[in-house]
């Protein structure tokens, strides 16, 4: 897979030269073989260097890479079995959300995933991973079912946000999201949420209230998309890169801030370069956290989950301010 992101330009030349040599195959001279080895080492080293220091905006580009593994890829690579269920039993079936019971390393779980769609046809079918209320209500229904049958819930998050069209207002987008936050806060089974690409605002949050919030190393999670934030703050979407930096939306920064519980390492150069390895890494992390959560009693699980979100937030106290108001 060629390097195709803007900040990968330094790697492109090197890769080209390498490919020219590689094409020679058995006809490589001894010194060329050594040269090739050097180049391979250099490419690896330079890629590491670049990916170790990705800015938030560069991370956005990796998280949105067209070849990045999507939820359906992980389902295929991770699960022993997955039975997709459809519909919210109210209005329709949202194809941006794929959900159903699954088996992961022999363990029964309930999977709830956001799927963006690979080719144009699938993208349209999935509405680009942008959910209507029906997607959140399908998730709500299946989370209640997970509770009923004692299945841990695993959510894979990948959306630019919830759909803000007029039809979504008519069908209660805000309520659909809020209802999930309310339900998940007290759901009586372990919940794992993993941002695999884009965690876009309330549309991502609606299936991310979890005992462990994990993120792939080069994924993002934000209160608003960089474009939306730039538009709100500075009335100009072309400042999206600045908004991305300011909001600290990369997985690494969020982990540093203690806002998420763990990172899932990605293959060198991003998950899109090796879907299988990305899935293997994800599976290992999921199993580790599942095992830990299964050790907890229900009371501990719920209390820890409550404390986790209860303590998110930073504030100060005003001292000796003349602004303190008397009671009206």
């Amino acid at each position, binding site marked *: 897979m060629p390097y195709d992101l803007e900040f990968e330009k330094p790697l492109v030349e090197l890769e080209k030269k390498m490919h020219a040599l590689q094409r020679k195959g058995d006809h490589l001279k001894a010194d060329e073989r050594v040269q090739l080895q050097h180049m391979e080492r250099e490419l690896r080293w330079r890629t590491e260097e670049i990916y170790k220091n990705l800015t938030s905006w560069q991370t956005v580009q990796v998280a949105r890479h067209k070849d990045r593994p999507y939820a359906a890829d992980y389902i295929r690579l991770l699960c022993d079995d997955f039975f997709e269920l459809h519909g919210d039993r109210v209005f329709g079936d949202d194809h941006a959300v794929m959900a159903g019971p699954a088996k992961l390393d022999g363990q029964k779980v309930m999977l709830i995933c956001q799927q963006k769609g690979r080719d144009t046809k699938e993208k349209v079918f999935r509405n680009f991973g942008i959910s209507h209320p029906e997607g959140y209500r399908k998730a709500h229904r299946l989370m209640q079912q997970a509770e009923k049958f004692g299945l841990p819930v695993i959510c894979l998050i990948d959306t630019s946000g919830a759909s803000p069209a*007029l039809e979504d*207002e008519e069908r209660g987008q805000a309520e659909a999201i809020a209802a999930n936050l309310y339900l998940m806060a007290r759901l009586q089974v372990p919940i794992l949420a993993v941002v695999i690409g884009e965690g876009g605002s*309330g549309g991502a949050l609606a299936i991310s209230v979890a005992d462990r919030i994990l993120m792939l190393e080069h994924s993002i999670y934000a209160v608003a998309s960089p474009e939306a934030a730039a538009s709100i*703050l500075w009335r100009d979407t072309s400042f999206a890169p600045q908004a991305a*930096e300011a909001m*600290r939306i990369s997985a690494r920064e969020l982990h540093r801030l203690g806002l998420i519980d763990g990172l899932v390492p990605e293959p060198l150069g991003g998950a899109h370069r090796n879907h299988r390895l990305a899935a293997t890494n994800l599976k290992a992390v999921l199993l580790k956290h599942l095992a830990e959560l299964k050790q907890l009693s229900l009371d501990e699980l719920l209390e820890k989950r409550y404390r986790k979100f209860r303590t998110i937030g930073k504030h100060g106290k005003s001292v000796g301010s003349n602004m*303190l108001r008397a009671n009206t």
Partner: protein
Amino acid sequence: MVKEAAVPSTGQTWTQPGMDGIGNVAVKCPKCKEILYGRDWEKNLRVCSRCDFHFKLTAYARIELLVDRGSFVELDADIISIDPLNFVSRSQPYTAKLGEEQNTTNLHEAVVSGHATIEKKPLALAVMDFRFIGGSMGSVVGEKITRTIELGIERRIPVLIVSASGGARMQEGLYSLMQMVKTSAALAKLGEAKIPYFSLLTDPTVGGVTASFATLGDVIIAEPGALVGFAGPRVIEGFMHTKLPEGVVSSEFALQHGMIDTVIHRRDLRYELGRLLNLYF
């Protein structure tokens, strides 16, 4: 019938710190363009006497309107925002923005909270103020609202939250988004304790606030003509590349689509809330 009997409520005149001088000036109704004289306008609870347009209220004016005179006790007034992300802004540092908003609004943050009584019934309440960075929810708004809900649980008194918000606060990034969970989780506990929660939506209530505590009320009330929805009209129009008809994404629209329980005129709010408190608790 019942409603009319209560309209004169307590008949108190309305003087509000920060509104001094308004009595002598005139305001123009943005809806019907009528010129309204300050004193009449205030006496009419900042509602247009001609077309019933409901102007925005400050948090303290709202509290005075809703609760029994002298019953409000403010809590957590000294909690203020900090800049958890060292937010790098093109325009103005977040802390400077906060200071400026504090000076112009004479508020510490976008919500005022505490406890009071309505028609002698005690309740915990939090009231948002749109003037403070568009009523946006960051850590402090989330914290104060959560404490209000916890006060309801602790004292076993109903909770009222009056929303007025443009959504989550960008400058606190994911901290802001997570306040949606924090408040909703507290409401889930309130629900387990079987204590009622009333949500009053005022102009405007959109975004993260609507997608969390504002739409989780056991009873959801809105003021007439308020902008109420997940996304504001500008966002919807941008997303759909079309122009929306006038009045869409309003209290009445939400009522029509089954998203809220009722739309209540400002002058009747205290009385109707009193009735609800009596019916539920």
